[in-house]
């Protein structure tokens, strides 16, 4: 299934699925039953007679996935299934993918959303510059980044102190996540007192401070060698895509 929904806008949801069934050689007697089953599973049954042109992006994406499943494949290739969708639609699709996987379908998912891969995948291959640089379960990948600690902090007043934070001792990298800063440090116990001292000097109040377990994203950064800044930019782009949907 491609990144862009490629169902026929001029046809109804029902006709789209029946056409997919015809192309894949699903026996005539099973087409209707299978289409109804998928439309119900994907929450589109009530709109089955409506033209797809009137559907939202999320609904079209669901229908595209449904069309890919019409012939009961044992393996499905999904390319960025949630790109450009709103949060609600993305969550619905992720839940559906989980359900599909539980029903025995192997899903080969390509995604730029690291959290999505973390939530959905049992095995993850990280591709950097066209080559697989790591292939393991999410937890095992995270373990590879464990020597690096992450301290997440937010300040009041909210100021752009990213560059000053970068210059602090023990800090190897900083990324901004919303109103918070993520500091990549070797030892959190040394970094936190230094951070408190930094706040005092700059008249900042700490609103929240957390030490985070390395995320899959941290593992990704470590494995690929991409800087947290580049990751942050990519993430912002991804979020923009999601909220625009």
């Amino acid at each position, binding site marked *: 299934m491609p990144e862009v929904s490629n169902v*026929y806008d001029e046809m109804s949801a029902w006709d789209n699925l029946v*056409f997919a069934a015809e*192309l*894949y*050689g699903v026996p005539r007697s099973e087409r209707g039953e299978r289409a109804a089953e998928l439309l119900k599973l994907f929450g589109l049954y009530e709109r089955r007679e409506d033209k797809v042109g009137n559907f939202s992006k999320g609904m079209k994406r669901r229908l595209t996935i449904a069309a890919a499943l019409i012939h009961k494949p044992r393996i499905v290739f999904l390319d960025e299934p949630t790109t450009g969708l709103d949060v609600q639609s993305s969550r619905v699709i992720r839940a559906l993918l989980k359900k599909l996987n539980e029903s025995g379908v192997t899903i080969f998912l390509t995604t730029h959303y690291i959290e999505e891969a973390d939530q959905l995948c049992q095995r993850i291959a990280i591709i950097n510059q066209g080559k697989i640089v790591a292939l393991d379960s999410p937890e095992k990948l995270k373990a590879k980044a464990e020597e690096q600690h992450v301290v997440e902090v937010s300040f009041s007043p909210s100021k752009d102190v990213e560059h000053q934070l970068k210059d602090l001792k023990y800090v190897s990298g900083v990324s901004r996540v919303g109103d918070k800063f993520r500091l990549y440090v070797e030892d959190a116990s040394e970094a936190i007192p230094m951070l408190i001292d930094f706040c005092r000097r700059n008249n900042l109040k700490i609103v929240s401070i957390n030490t985070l377990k390395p995320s899959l994203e941290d593992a990704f950064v470590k494995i690929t060698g991409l800087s947290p800044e580049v990751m942050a930019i990519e993430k912002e782009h991804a979020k923009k895509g999601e909220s625009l949907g």
Partner: protein
Amino acid sequence: MARTWIQSLIKAFYIAKKDAKVYYFKAPNFTYGLLMPVSLFIAFSIAGQINSSLIVSGLTSLVILFGTTSIEAVAVVLEKQTGTFERLLTAPVSFFTILFGKALAGLFFGLVLATAVLVPLTVISRTFIANPLLVFIAITFSSLTFSALGVLISAYAKWVPEAQMLSNFLRFPMAFLSGTFLPLELLPSQLGIIARFLPLTYSVEALRISINDSAPTITYLVDILILALFSFILLVAGSKVLQRRLE
């Protein structure tokens, strides 16, 4: 082997049915397919005093040519642009079957267009059709051939305007060189030779014979055979072009 062929044929029919639903049978498609050749023909028939069987065969062939090539340009190129063509490419269907399905939809469209022209035209011009079955067969093969031509063009083109431009590049010279407005015998000999390489020539000829003769002549049968051959070659060429374009 035979089973695979039948399955491919059935899938081509499904593609044709889908195309008919999605792209064809909308008012603008009919108007362009009809208006352009009708206007051309009226202009020439007024100037040239063309006889009625020439009018009926020439105009019907032109309508099929313009109608089917125009719609094929939209049906294939638009699908490539919107991404829905991927749906067909990823399905277990060969390139040839996809393009044959597209041409099949064009064939039905051509039949409808030709009927829309032929019936009023025979009534108005008081032309007696000697063998309607032969006319039907000639129209069917003409429609398939011109649809296949449209399919080949749109397999190559990236945008609808490019496909339309290429279609016009072929359609207009064909319209003048294929004995549509003027019997082939009256054309200079060199042009007469060129005309034999153009599918429209065989379409016009087959239609003219079927209007005048109640039994199929050898020329008629050869015309139909050549149209079938043109269809096959154009579709095979279309499949190759598409494959190259997608690489």
